[in-house]
C-alpha cells in the first residue's frame, strides 16, 4: 500500500484511493461539495484544494490518487485562502436564508463557513435572483438560489438510477439545475437527492418545515420494507413527550454500508418506514366477545388468558390443533421464540402470510418485500408454499402475527378459515382486519421500537436496537413471547 504524508503524518492508504478519503479516514477533514464517494471525482467545486509538495498549483484532493512519497498539506495559508475564496464565491450569490432553510444545521455550506471563513460579506453587488420554488419531483422541491451546482443530483440520476431526469441548463452564472420542461423526476430512488444535496437546494415535502435538524436524534436501524435490509438512520425527535414515540420519527435516511446499500435507499423504504410508524397503529390490548371494555385489559390478564388457552389444548393432547400464521417481517429472535413456543405446545403447523412480491428496481429495492425471509428459512420455517387457509382450517387455536404490511388478506380464504376457527390470538403492530374479530389482540412493537436482527437476501445477519420507546400498551414481541412461554411452564 502506498505511504503518503498528510500534514506531517505518515498514512498508509490502499492503492487507488484519493487524498480526500485518505485524509478523512485519518481524521483530517478536507471540505468539499461536489465530491461524493459514490461517484468519480468531478473537480468542479474547487473546495478541496490542497498543497502538494513539488506542485506549483494547489491540487484537488478529490482527484489526486495516493502514490508513494506524496506529501500533502491541508492547513497552509494558501489552502486556507483558497477555501475562503471558494466560500466567498458561493456566498456571493447564496440567499443566506438559513433561518427558513430545512438544511440549516446539517448544511455543508453553513458548516464550512463556520469552520473556514466567518468573514463579513464584502459583496456590494446585487445577488443573482433565481427561482426558489421549483417542483422537480412528486415530493421534491428545488431552490435554485441555494444551489451550489455541485451536480451530485445530476450525476446520481445519470449514473446510479440512469433515469437522467436532471441536467444543467444555461451557462456561466446563469447555469442551473432543471428537469426537461414540464417533466418531473420519476425515479423511485429520488429521495436520495435530498441527502446528496450539500445545501438546502433540494428539499423534501415530507420533511419541509416539519422540524429543525438539530432537534433530531439519529438512531441506527435496518429498513424492513424489502429483503435488501438497507442500513438506515431513524431521525427522531426526543422531545414532546405527549406525542407517542413512533410518531416522533421525522424521516429515515440511508446509513452508508458498502456491503448492503452503499450510500442510498429507495423511496419505497424511505416513505414506507415512516408511514408505518405514524399511522394506523394498534396500541391497546383488547379482546372481542370477552365483554371487557377497552382499557380493562392489562398484559398480566391478557397473557394469563393466552397461556390458559394454549395450556388447555396441550393438556388435552390437542396441541396439534394449535396453528400459527406468521410473516417474514418477524426478527430472528422472535421467530426463534415462536418456534420454541410452538414446539412446547406440540403445535400443528405454521404458515406465512407475507405481503406479495413487488417489482425489483434493479438498484436497491428487491421483489421480496419482507426483511427476514432468509432468517425464517434458516430457522426451519417454510415461508412459501404452506397455505394459511389450510393451517387455519385445521386449528382450534391460532396465533396470528400481523403488521401494517403483513396481514391475512381481507376476503381471502385464509381470512374465512380464520374467522371460523374457534379461537385466535393476534399479535399486531397495527389495527388490522383480524383485530376486528380476534379473541385477543396484543399490541407489539413496530420496528423502530423493537430490537433484534434480520437476515437479508444475501444471508447477512443485521442486528438493530430500538430507536424510540413504544407507548401505551405496546411491548416488544420478544418480551411478550418470553412472558407467555414462562406462563405455560417453559423456559425459552
Amino acid at each position, binding site marked *: 500500500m502506498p505511504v503518503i504524508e498528510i500534514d506531517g503524518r505518515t498514512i498508509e492508504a490502499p492503492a487507488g484511493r484519493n487524498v480526500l478519503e485518505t485524509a478523512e479516514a485519518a481524521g483530517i477533514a478536507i471540505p468539499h461539495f461536489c465530491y461524493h464517494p459514490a461517484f468519480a*471525482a*468531478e*473537480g*468542479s*467545486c*474547487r*473546495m478541496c*484544494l490542497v498543497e502538494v509538495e513539488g506542485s506549483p*498549483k*494547489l491540487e*484537488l484532493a478529490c*482527484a489526486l490518487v495516493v502514490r508513494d512519497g506524496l506529501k500533502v498539506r491541508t492547513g497552509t495559508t494558501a489552502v486556507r485562502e*483558497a477555501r475562503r*475564496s*471558494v466560500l*466567498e*464565491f*458561493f456566498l*456571493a*450569490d447564496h440567499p443566506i436564508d438559513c433561518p427558513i432553510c430545512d438544511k440549516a444545521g446539517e448544511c455543508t455550506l453553513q458548516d464550512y463557513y463556520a469552520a473556514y471563513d466567518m468573514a463579513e460579506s*464584502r*459583496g*456590494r*453587488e*446585487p445577488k*443573482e435572483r433565481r427561482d426558489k420554488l421549483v417542483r422537480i419531483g412528486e415530493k421534491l422541491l428545488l431552490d435554485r438560489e441555494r444551489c*451550489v*451546482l455541485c451536480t451530485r443530483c445530476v450525476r446520481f440520476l445519470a449514473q446510479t438510477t440512469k433515469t437522467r431526469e436532471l*441536467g*444543467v441548463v*444555461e*451557462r*456561466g*452564472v*446563469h*447555469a442551473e439545475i432543471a428537469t426537461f420542461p414540464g417533466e418531473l423526476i420519476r425515479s423511485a430512488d429520488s429521495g436520495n437527492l435530498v441527502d446528496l444535496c450539500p445545501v438546502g437546494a433540494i428539499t423534501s415535502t415530507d420533511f419541509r418545515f416539519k422540524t429543525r435538524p438539530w432537534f433530531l436524534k439519529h438512531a441506527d436501524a435496518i429498513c424492513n420494507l424489502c429483503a435488501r435490509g438497507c442500513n438506515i438512520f431513524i431521525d427522531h425527535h426526543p422531545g414532546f413527550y405527549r406525542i407517542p414515540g413512533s410518531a416522533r420519527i421525522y424521516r429515515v435516511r440511508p446509513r452508508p454500508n458498502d456491503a448492503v446499500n452503499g450510500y442510498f435507499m429507495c423511496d419505497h423504504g424511505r416513505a414506507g418506514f415512516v408511514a408505518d410508524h405514524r399511522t394506523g397503529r394498534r396500541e391497546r390490548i383488547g379482546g372481542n366477545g370477552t365483554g371487557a371494555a377497552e382499557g380493562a385489559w392489562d398484559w398480566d390478564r391478557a397473557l394469563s388468558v393466552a397461556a390458559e388457552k394454549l395450556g388447555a389444548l396441550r393438556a388435552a393432547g390437542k396441541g396439534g390443533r394449535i396453528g400459527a400464521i406468521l410473516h417474514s417481517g418477524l426478527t430472528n429472535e422472535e421467530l426463534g421464540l415462536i418456534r420454541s413456543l410452538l414446539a412446547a405446545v406440540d403445535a400443528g403447523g405454521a404458515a406465512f402470510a407475507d405481503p406479495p412480491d413487488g417489482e425489483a428496481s434493479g438498484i436497491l429495492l428487491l421483489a421480496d418485500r419482507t426483511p427476514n425471509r432468509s432468517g425464517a428459512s434458516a430457522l426451519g420455517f417454510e415461508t412459501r408454499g404452506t397455505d394459511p387457509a389450510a393451517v387455519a382450517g385445521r386449528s382450534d387455536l391460532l396465533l396470528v402475527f400481523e403488521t401494517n404490511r403483513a396481514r391475512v388478506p381481507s376476503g381471502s380464504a385464509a381470512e374465512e378459515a380464520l374467522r371460523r376457527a374457534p379461537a385466535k390470538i393476534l399479535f399486531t403492530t397495527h389495527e388490522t382486519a383480524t383485530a376486528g374479530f380476534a379473541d385477543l389482540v396484543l399490541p407489539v412493537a413496530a420496528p423502530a421500537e423493537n430490537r433484534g436482527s434480520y437476515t437479508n437476501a444475501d444471508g447477512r445477519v443485521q442486528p438493530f436496537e430500538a430507536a424510540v420507546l413504544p407507548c401505551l400498551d405496546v411491548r416488544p414481541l420478544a418480551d411478550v413471547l418470553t412472558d407467555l412461554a414462562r406462563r405455560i411452564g417453559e423456559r425459552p
Partner: protein
Amino acid sequence: MNGAALLTRGFDRPDLFRIDAYLDTGGYAALRKALTGMTPAAILAEVKAASLRGRGGAGFPAGMKWGFVPQAAGAPRYLCVNADEGEPGTFKDRFILAHTPHLMIEGIILTCYAVGIETAYVYIRGEYEMIARRLEAAVDEARARGFLGKDILESGFNLEIVVHRGAGAYICGEETALLESLEGKRGLPRLKPPFPAVIGLFGRPTVINNVETLANVPLIVQNGAAWFLEQGRPKDGGTRLFGVSGPVVRPGVYELPVGASLRDLIFTHAGGLKPGKTLKAVIPGGLSSPLLKPDEIDVALSCDAVAAAGSMLGSAGVIVIDASTPIIDLLGLVTKFYSHESCGQCTPCRIGTAWIHKIVGRIAAGEGCPADLDEILRLAENIKGRTLCPLGDAAALPILAIVRKFRAELEQGMR
C-alpha cells in the same frame, strides 16, 4: 502578407483551395514522400526535432504531444483538429481553411500516419459556414484523388476525415470541452488527468491539434527539421500567422518568422496606426493574453519571449488599442466576454467572472471607487490557477494586467 511565404505558399493563385491548384504549387509532395519512404517513427522524430509549438494558444510542442499517445493501447486512436477559432482577435485558422485547406488536410494525413490514426475529426467553428463547406469540398477532392480513404497511395494506410461544426460556444475551443461537444454532450471541460492523449474522444487515445499547427507538418516533412528551425527560433521553429486588428493602416493576417518583432509587425507590416491615432496598448496573443503598454512592445514574437515579457503569444491574434479607447470599455468587454462564455461548471470562474463584471459595470456607470479596483484584483487572483480549465486564467490574466497597468486611468473621476 510579407516576409516568409511557407504556409502562404501559392497564395497568388485565387483557386488555391482547389486541389489542382494546390498540386500545382507542390502540394501533397510531402505526403508522397512520407508514404513512400518514411516510417511513422521517422515523421514523429522529425516533428519533435523541429520544435513545432502548438499554434492554438498554449504553445505546447506538437511532437511531444503525439509522443504521449500510448501505442500499446491499440486502435482506435483519434485526431481532433481544433478549428473552433473563438479567441477574440484571432482569425488566422479561417485564413488557412479558406485559402489553403489542402495544406491542413495534408498535415492531418501526415499526423495520422505518424501516430497511427484512421479517423480524424475537424471541429470547425459553427459561424464558419462558407469555410466549412469549402473544407468539406476539399476533403471530398482529396478522397477522390486517393489521398483519403482506404490504402492511401498504396501504402496500406487508411484515413477518413469527418468535418463537424460547432455551435458557437467559446469553451468548446478548450480541448476537452471540444471532445465532449464532439461526443454530443454539453461542452464542458473535463477534469485532467487523464489527458486526452490517454483517454480522449470516446474514451480512446486522442491527439488534438490546432489548424495552423497541422498546416506546418507538410513543411517539416518536406524540408526537414533543421530547415524548419532555421525559419524561426531554436526552441520555436517555423513561421506564424499573425492576425492584426484594430486601428492600423493595414489590418490583416501576416506570415512572419517566429521571433519577428511585435513593433515591426504593427508599425512596418501593418503600416502603423491610422492617422490621428496613437498607441495605447497591444494585446499580443488573443484577448486572453495580458496586454502590453507601448513601451513593452519591443518583444520578439516567440512563445518564450512574449512569456518573458509577462504576456503570452497565445493564438497570435494581435489587437491594437488606440488612445481614444477608454480602458474601462476594454475592461468591460473582457469581463463581459468571459462571464458570458464561462461554462458555469466550476465555482471560481462561474461566479468570479460574473462578480467582476458587475463591479466593472458599476465603475463604468460612474459609481466606482478605488477600493473596487482592489476588489477586482483580489477576485481575479482568486480565479487564477484555481479553475478546472484554462478559461479561468484566460479571464483573470487580462483583467489583472488591465487594472494594474491602467489603474491611474481607471481611478480618474472616482471619488
